[in-house]
Each structure stands twice: as structure tokens, then as C-alpha cells.
């Protein structure tokens, strides 16, 4: 299981907030350290600058239903005064351009003559995931990986969704980077996309990041692909996450996401989906009035994700889930300051620990 450094996590050192223009250098660095490189977080200054502007606009805009808003968050280490992580919420995965995936399908070939029935697997281009809210573009400094900082960064987005449900779809989706071999090659791309695009995975991923993935999808061949004709390496990569993202996937499954029939069109990485009402963070998040107490007087409790009730000044931290008998959440003065809340204001809290759920397979 996950290692955790409770000292770090329960103090008010780490905080998630909306990205700002001054975060640009940090985002560039994070785009570069992502393993593997993320299509939706290209290490390209102009694109990142656009991303921040677009995010500012999303946080600022009055929104009644999900549209083409992209909300980009950063994780700030206040002690080191550095941004050490970022993650994005796309209100609708395919608001402007369709969001394409390969959908795993089963055809039945039945022969009356031979009295047999065979199932034949195919991959068909699909844009069904377009209608979901997408959690994407997460990159975290290696030093923080595997700590509660990672959960904070990943799930603070759910805390935001919990507060602004009208801004997001009922269905949430996360696309995990797909399996790459030791040489950083995608066996799936090498057996599929490469035939059509004569470019290696890195190149196409770069083009997709800087331009758009959907316009590539739109020139992809339109007939379903027969799985038995792919290389065994490619077949094995379908729905398989990048080794570096195993833990992240496990956390999202524990959260209540389920594997879907959809995989990434480039590397066949898994797309997990979850209806909001099925997700632990959203189910278990509840509002509490704040009570500020000296840190040393707080009881020793389980940690929680705690978020303030603000949009442009959204903050989310990990703090002890210290409830008073009357249901107030007791925060240290430092946590209260970071969250920008005063005594008596409502804050949203959800347990940091998730029940361990088995990987239930396909949705």
C-alpha cells in the first residue's frame, strides 16, 4: 500500500488551488517530468499559457451546465514556496472537439452450419466519452509521489465537483497513460496507429498535444479493428496502465471508478468511469462549520480532504478529520488561514482513506 508521511500531510504545508499565470514555469517543468509525457499536458509554453488563461476563465465564468471549461489546479508546497503538482478538470471531455477512444466490442459470429458461436473482439472508434467530465493532465514532482500529496492533488478535483455539481457531468472519467515498454515504446501504437501514421508514439503524442488529438482521430481508419490481428504485445497492452500509474489507477478504483470498455486511441491506456453518486469522496463529503483550535489541542484522528467554499479562491488541503461532538470541524489556525476560512464558515470534508475495493473489471 501507499506510504504516507503523516507529518507532512497533516500540516498545512500542501495546498491545492487554481493555477495562475505565475505558475507557468512550474507547469512547464511538471509537463517535462511527467512519466510518460502526457498528451494533454504538452511541454509547450504557448499551450500551457493558454491552459492557464482558459482555466482562469473557467473559474471566473458563471456556468449553469458543463461546457468547454477546463479547470487547472496546482499543488503548492508552501514551505518551499513551489508548485509541485498540477491536475485538470475538463467539464466535458468533448465539448469543443470530440473526445475519441477505442471502444472494446464483441461481435458474435454464429454458424448454423457448423453449430458454433464465436465471439470476436474488436476495437471501434468512439466518441461516447465526450459527454463525461474528464480528470486529466495530472503531474506531480517525483519527490511527492506516493505520499498523501498525490491523493490530495488527484481528489481535490472531486472536492471541487462536490461543490459545483452543475458545472460537471454526472459521469466522470479518467484516462490513464497506457503501457509503454522498457524503451518507452507503446506496443499498441506500434501495432495499430503506426501502420496508418508512419510516426512513432512520441512524435504523434507530441503532435496531438500541441495540436489536437481529435483531428488525428478523425483521419483514423473508420472500420473496427479485429483484435486477433493485433500483435500479442499490443493485445496485452489494451486497458493496461503505464507502470508508473498503477497506484493511481488503484486509488481511482477504490474511489469507485470502474474500468470501462474504452481505451486510449494511441496507447490503449484504460479509461475508467464513475457516476458521481458512486464515488467515495463525493458520497462521504459533508459540510461542517469551522471551529478554530490550537494545533496541539486537536485530537489525533484520521486525515481528511478539506476544501473551502470558494470558486476562484478554491483551496483544498489535508487536515485531521477532527469533529466536535456537535459536528464542527476543528481546524488549526494555520489550516484555517490556508483555506481562508473563519470560525463558523462552512467547509467541505471527506475522509482521505478509501475503502480498498477490488478491481471489478469492466463497467
Amino acid at each position, binding site marked *: 500500500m501507499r506510504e504516507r508521511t503523516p507529518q507532512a500531510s497533516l500540516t498545512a504545508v500542501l495546498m491545492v488551488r487554481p493555477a495562475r499565470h505565475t505558475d507557468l514555469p512550474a507547469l512547464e517543468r511538471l509537463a517535462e517530468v511527467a512519466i510518460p509525457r502526457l498528451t494533454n499536458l504538452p511541454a509547450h509554453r504557448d499551450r500551457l499559457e493558454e491552459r492557464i488563461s482558459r482555466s482562469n476563465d473557467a473559474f471566473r465564468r458563471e456556468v449553469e451546465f458543463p461546457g468547454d471549461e477546463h479547470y487547472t489546479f496546482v499543488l503548492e508546497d508552501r514551505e518551499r514556496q513551489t508548485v509541485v503538482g498540477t491536475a485538470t478538470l475538463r467539464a466535458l471531455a468533448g465539448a469543443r472537439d470530440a473526445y475519441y477512444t477505442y471502444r472494446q466490442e464483441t461481435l458474435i459470429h454464429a454458424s448454423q452450419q457448423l453449430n458454433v458461436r464465436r465471439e470476436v473482439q474488436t476495437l471501434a472508434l468512439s466518441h461516447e466519452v465526450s459527454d463525461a467530465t474528464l480528470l486529466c493532465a495530472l503531474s506531480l514532482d517525483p519527490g511527492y509521489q506516493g505520499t498523501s500529496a498525490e491523493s490530495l492533488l488527484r481528489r481535490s478535483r472531486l472536492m471541487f465537483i462536490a461543490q459545483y455539481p452543475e458545472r460537471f457531468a454526472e459521469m466522470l472519467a479518467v484516462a490513464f497513460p497506457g503501457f509503454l515498454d522498457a524503451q518507452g515504446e507503446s506496443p499498441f501504437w506500434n501495432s495499430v496507429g503506426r501502420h496508418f501514421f508512419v510516426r512513432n508514439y512520441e512524435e504523434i503524442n507530441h503532435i496531438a498535444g500541441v495540436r489536437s488529438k481529435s483531428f488525428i482521430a478523425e483521419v483514423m481508419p473508420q472500420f473496427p479493428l479485429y483484435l486477433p*490481428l493485433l500483435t500479442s504485445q499490443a493485445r496485452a497492452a489494451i486497458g493496461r496502465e503505464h507502470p508508473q500509474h498503477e497506484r493511481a489507477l488503484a486509488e481511482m478504483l477504490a474511489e469507485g471508478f470502474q474500468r470501462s470498455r474504452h481505451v486510449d486511441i494511441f496507447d490503449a491506456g484504460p479509461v475508467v468511469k464513475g457516476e458521481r453518486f458512486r464515488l467515495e469522496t463525493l458520497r462521504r463529503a459533508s459540510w461542517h462549520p469551522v471551529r478554530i483550535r490550537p494545533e496541539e489541542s486537536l485530537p489525533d484522528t484520521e486525515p481528511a480532504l478539506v476544501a473551502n467554499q470558494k470558486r476562484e479562491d478554491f483551496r483544498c488541503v489535508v487536515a485531521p478529520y477532527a469533529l466536535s461532538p456537535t459536528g464542527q470541524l476543528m481546524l488549526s489556525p494555520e489550516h484555517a488561514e490556508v483555506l481562508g476560512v473563519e470560525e463558523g464558515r462552512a467547509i467541505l470534508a471527506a475522509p482521505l482513506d478509501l475503502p480498498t475495493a477490488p478491481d471489478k473489471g469492466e463497467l
Partner: protein
Amino acid sequence: MRIRPIARGDLDGLQVLARQTGVGFTSLPDNREFLARKIETAAQAFEERTPVDDRLYFFVLEDEEEGELAGCCAIEAQVGREIPFYHYHLGTLAHSSVQLDLHRTIDTLFLSSDHTGNAEVASLFLRPEYRGVDRRHQRNGALLSKARWLFMAEFRDRFPDKVLAEMRGVFNAEGKSPFWQCLGSHFFPLDFEEADRLTGLGQKSFIGELMPKFPIYTPFLSEEARACIGQVHEQTRPALEMLKKEGLRWEGYIDIFDGGPTVEAYIDDVRAIRVSRRCQVEIVEKSKPGEERPSWLAATTNMLDFRAAWLDRGPGDEGVITLTEQEAKRLNVRSGDTLRVLET
């Protein structure tokens, strides 16, 4: 040696052929009942008692001296009328994107029944005893192959616009079809031989039922399988060459199972059909000696009494061909009868 329609008394002889054909010649199983049915079907075709679309004209090569059958060949008047007829068509799809500076084509196999209604030349078999070096001068193989063109030329109105021939595909040193191994084996729960056997018997609804129906992008096939597309079995090369000389061409259609080519032509374009012509028979006691290796093919013009054989000479300028008594007997013609001849 002469070609004639199969007759109801040929069952024993046909069974001898069926026993010798062996693997890969699936239309002639060693099954007496099946063969009897086949003979009856063919007999009714030559008697013109069945609809023109449904006919199977089945011929035998007869060693009239030994009184035995040396081989066979057939013409199916229209394929796909009773039983679906499938090919893969090797087509090309443009794949281009201005923005990606991409401009290519992708070869794609499309399931097709485009040849439904075409004629087919098929079932050519010559017993090994009749094809050795010492038999080369008899040109028995060419006789079996080409006699059909004379038949089609003479009875042109019984045939559609196009004719095709299916050629056996490539097999590797282990006797396996790489094309089948890469494609068909994933979809059919039987081995190649069994699939081929059922197809030969006309029991092929399983093909339509189990075939992948979406197009197959050829880059997904193994290199070895791709190399089989439209290529023939080594032993089939001479037969293919003979057909190509007549003008049959590969237009991208291949066998579902082994990837072998189907060659085709407009019947009126087939060289032998185009250049064959009629002439009058004159029987002489002794004709002047012709070439050693016969180069003229002659056939009668009566369907029920169709005969075809080699001659070592052609007609003179006046359109008269002289035959010896023996030749006339072989072809079953008399002076004044008409023959269709072809110089090869």
C-alpha cells in the same frame, strides 16, 4: 485422346479420378453418391434440360484407345447462384491529412461477392500417368484447359459476360497456408483442409456466417501472410500462365482461405475465344504429315456430342480442314461437318 462431356456410364472412371486427385482438389471427393449426382447434373446440363444459369458442364479427357478416363475439367455457367460466392477484394483506401502532411493509401481486404453470376473454369485434373515426360507430346493438360474455350466460343449465348478461374494460393514448406494461419484460423473453428473440403462440396454457408465482415487493413496481417495475397502455389504457376496467355488477369480478388488469386476476363476478350474459327471437315485417306507437336485444337459444334482433340494441322485458306479417318472418328465427325479450330 479427346475431350467429351461426362456421361452416365462414367461413374467408375470418375471415381478412379477422384481417388487420385488428393488434397486440395475438393470438388471431387471420393464419394460414389456425390459423384453420381455430379454426373447426373452435368448430363442434364449438356442435354440443356436445366436452366442456363445453373449448369455445370463437366468434361472428361478420354483415352479412347485404352478406353479409360485420363482427366477432367469443368465450366460452371454462373457461380454464386445457388451458393454464395465470396472473395476478398484487395482495395485501396486513401489516408490523408493536409495538416499532418500525410498522404498515403492503405490496402484493405473487403469481403465481396462481386463475381456472382460469372462463369468459372474449374476442376481441371489430369492423371499422373498422362502427364509424364513421355506424354508431353500429347499436350493433355493444355487440351483440358483450352477445350473449354472452344466450348464457350461455340455456345457463347449460354454464358455471361465474364469468366473467372480460382488459383490455389501459397503454402509454406510445412504445407500450411500462411494467409489462413494469420487470418482465417482466428475466425473459423476448423482447420484449413476441413474448411476447404466443405467449400469444395458446396457447403459453404459457414463462410458468410463466420468471416470477418468488416474490412481488413492488410498492414495488420503478418508479412508472410501479406506476401501470399494474390500469389499462387508453385505447382499452379503453369496453369496460371496458360490462363494469363488467354488474357485472364488478376483484378485484386483473392481466395478467402489461402489468399490465392482469382483471375478473370470478359469472355469475348479471351484470346482463344476471339481467334477460334469455324471450318469444314474433309476426310481423306491419308493426310500429309503435320508438325510433330500438335498446335491446332479442334472441337465439334454440337453440345451433346461435343468432342475436342489436338490436330497436327490447321485448315487451308479455303476454310477446309482435312482429317484422317481416325481423327474423324475421334471427333465423331463426317465430311461436311463443321469444326471450331484454334491455333495455339
